[in-house]
């Protein structure tokens, strides 16, 4: 993926400093040398059956996957967003790649030490001492769940937190009842593809009235080359329960583009609350715009019951292309949907992200806070929909979508859609655009702060409202990630 060559522009010194900050190298760009098991390239019924058989899935799953594949064959790849990228060679991709292993590991000691080293480099708290920090981790490498920690402690409360492949085995009733109910296999091109080929992901079930005592977390990493990562996450919060789920993503540096087409489904029943936080720093490609992840993700939550709440928080700094709209269907009366987002793009990155708030229930409320930061030659778009259907009496939405531009080679766009069919709705959308001004940087310079730190401070201040939504450890990590992603952007 390479954008057109721009005429070299005379940059001021300040701008060069900014650019430097944005240009720091990707620090997660190492490749783990572990033996991979891959299926042949391409996609057909046989591959699907192989994936399904490999996982020893019940027949209903195999059938569901095949239905999805057949539907996908009839679909056209969407091209309606602002994004520019060459065709994805779907037939050259590997749809299944797993670290080779003899048997499933029973404990951390049995996990491939190379893998553990990888997670250590990533800073995933997989070790026992870090478990004490209270984060339960389901680590997904390429598409297979490697280890799920803290499982026993959670199961005492009746909480199920395991790889979705395991859930398909052990809890087929829950899977049958909920899988595909929020994002049906016919939903969109990438979600359909995911339904056909997903190999793993996380599954969470919180029983009625239970407040999950710790943050649940998954860590995704794309390791093998030319693989598409199709993980699938399903979280069900039963009546009156609460869960906070964190998702982190990294990928090694590769020249070619890798596809990531995940599906996340959330279901909140009456009085339940789900908080879903993402820190995404997939490899964004080189400074010249080579390589990087295509992140085409479908995330959607259903506030099924009365007084339910789903809150999405995302910090998006990675991927060559991001295309995702974590959404809420506010079906329950008094249900609440929230979307907090920071999307930072640099170099040749393109992001088209936002949310959909579909108000169906009476007195449903939604809040959208989106902070876009564009640097380098990147393009960053907010695209969102607020829909109030006929029967959603007294719905409220407030949206604030701000853009911050660093340098004059990038783009920042806002495309809000509001479709209002009920007169008692109150809908408000506001957007502003600002830049990191040279005066601000100078002011901070004059107080002894370097330009890099100054930009970091200004950007952090700008994105504070969203960071505050993240659990503490994640907020710190997200802030650090922002500075790294901004390296060299002082431009």
């Amino acid at each position, binding site marked *: 993926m390479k954008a057109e060559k721009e005429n070299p522009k005379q940059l001021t010194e300040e701008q060069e400093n900014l650019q430097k900050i944005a240009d720091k190298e990707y620090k997660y760009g190492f490749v783990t040398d572990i033996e991979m098991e891959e299926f042949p390239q391409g996609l057909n019924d046989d591959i699907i059956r192989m994936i399904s058989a490999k996982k020893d899935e019940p027949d209903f799953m195999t059938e569901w996957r095949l239905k999805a594949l057949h539907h996908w064959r009839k679909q056209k790849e969407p091209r*309606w967003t602002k994004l520019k990228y060459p065709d994805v060679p779907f037939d050259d991709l590997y749809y299944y790649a797993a670290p080779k292993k003899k048997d499933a590991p029973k404990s951390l000691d049995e996990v491939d030490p190379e893998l553990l080293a990888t997670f250590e480099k990533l800073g995933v708290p997989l070790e026992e001492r870090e478990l004490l920090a209270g984060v339960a981790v389901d680590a997904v490498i390429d598409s297979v769940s490697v280890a799920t920690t803290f499982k026993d402690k959670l199961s005492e409360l009746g909480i199920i937190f395991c790889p979705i492949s395991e859930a398909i085995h052990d809890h087929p009733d829950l899977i049958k009842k909920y899988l595909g109910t929020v994002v049906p296999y016919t939903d969109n091109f990438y979600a359909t593809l995911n339904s056909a080929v997903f190999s793993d992901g996380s599954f969470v079930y919180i029983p009625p009235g239970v407040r999950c005592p710790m943050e649940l977390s998954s860590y995704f990493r794309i390791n093998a080359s030319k693989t598409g990562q199709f993980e699938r996450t399903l979280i069900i919060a039963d009546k009156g329960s609460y869960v906070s789920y964190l998702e982190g993503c990294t990928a090694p540096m590769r020249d070619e583009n890798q596809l990531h087409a995940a599906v996340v489904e959330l279901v909140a029943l009456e009085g339940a609350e789900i908080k879903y936080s993402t820190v995404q720093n997939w490899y964004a490609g080189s400074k010249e715009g080579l390589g990087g992840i295509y992140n085409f993700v479908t995330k959607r939550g259903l506030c099924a019951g009365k007084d339910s709440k789903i809150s999405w928080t995302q910090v998006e700094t990675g991927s060559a292309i991001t295309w995702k709209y974590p959404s809420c269907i506010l079906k329950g009366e008094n249900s609440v949907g929230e979307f907090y987002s920071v999307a930072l793009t640099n170099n040749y990155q393109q992001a088209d992200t936002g949310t959909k708030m579909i108000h169906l229930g009476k007195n449903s409320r939604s809040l959208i806070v989106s902070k876009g930061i564009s640097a380098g030659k990147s393009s960053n778009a907010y695209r969102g929909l607020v829909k109030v259907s*006929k029967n959603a009496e007294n719905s409220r939405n407030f949206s604030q979508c701000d*853009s911050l*531009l*660093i*340098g*004059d*080679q*990038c*783009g*920042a*766009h*806002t*495309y*809000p*859609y*509001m*479709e*209002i*069919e*009920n*007169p*008692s*709705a*109150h*809908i*408000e*959308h*506001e*957007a*502003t*655009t600002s*830049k990191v001004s040279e005066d601000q940087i100078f002011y901070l310079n004059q107080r002894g702060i370097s330009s890099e730190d100054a930009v970091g401070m200004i950007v952090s201040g700008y994105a504070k409202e969203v960071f505050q939504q993240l659990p503490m450890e994640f907020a710190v990590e997200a802030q650090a990630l922002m500075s790294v992603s901004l390296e060299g952007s002082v431009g």
Partner: protein
Amino acid sequence: MADIYPDIKTWLQEKSIDTHASDYVLSPERRTESLRAVAENNFPTRKDEEWRYTPIANVVNRSIQSGTDLSIDADDLQEIKQIVPEACHVVFVDGQYSAELSDDLAAVAKQGVDISPLSEMNASQGQLAEAMVTNANFSDTNIFQYMTLGLVNSGLFIHVEQNTEVEQPLHIIYVNGPTKSAVVQTPVNFIRLGTNSRFTCIQHFVNSDESKAITIPADFFDLAEGSGIQSYRIGVESDQTDHISNSYARIADSARFVSHQYLLGSRLTRSNTEVLFDGEGAEAVLRGIYLGDNDQHLDIRTYVDHAKPNCMSDQHFRGILGGKARGVFNGLVMVQKDAQHTNAEQSNKNLLLSREARVDTKPQLEIYADDVKCGHGATVGELDEDALFYLQSRGIGREEAAQMLIHAFAAEVTQDITIGSLQPYILEKLDKKLSEISGP
């Protein structure tokens, strides 16, 4: 005698370069090319992003008649003229210029304006018009533009000479008589302002309850350095009229384009306004109200292209919708890469007055320059409860308090009207319609 066609596509099939127009209006190549595009293109559907909220199947499928008797009630016309008594009035009946009903254009010419109906255009005027079309940038090319450019069978060419301040407003009135099937009218106006000139122009679309029409007008504005125009579009047509308009304004250094739109009538209106900043220090002010009731569908599209630095644009549109009416605002501010110090504001507020009314709004920003001030806002809602209570607590009944607030919501936009006699007319029209609007 009138020929009847089952739909507009069939009607179009017979069209070749129209004989009503002078040979000099636009180049023959452009006209032929445009007519070919009409034949080759389909009408937009809701799959086209720019027409997402505006289905036009009911427009496309209407039966059409060609040839009318151009009959019009002279008293009615006189009344319309009296709305702006000081203006020079130009009248189009069923899309055709009527010298008989219009004031003498020579009086306008004396004030330093080169003015001519399209049928009487000369070669140099034709070249200027052609250049205006070439210089316009079309952000949403569609079959309606091609129709107006291919048919160019009526309209005005206006060129205000440099350093000329024309005090007399030009009042262009489009009327239709009663007909059995819909009449298609496609007037095109070419309005050029010379350096430092000033001009005011009102386009008034009005017809009787028995009128059936599809009105597809296009305006091309070209504002030279330091010039300024106040352009008004008033739509008060019958509910058997569909109206799909396109306006293109190119604005040079320090010029000022002010557009006012009051859309109250028609069954379906789609009004597209595109502004191109082709110079620095220029300003564009876009104001509009769409007030719909019953089954009306009113769609406002704007596209403001900040292609040059240091320009200011300010858009403010308000919608009031009762009955089963639908309102659409689809606006985009584009700030090109080198357009530093752009100052762009875009605001859209809507009131829904009934359970069946609906609004879709899409205020958009596309920004490629960093040192800019851009903001937009949109709201949809009922009347402010606190304001209602405040008025009630002063002794004003709730019903009346609501009327006051609705009136104020609309009237705020009319404050920018620069023609003295026009504001009361608009307010009266707004109030009359508001008093009849079907509530919840």
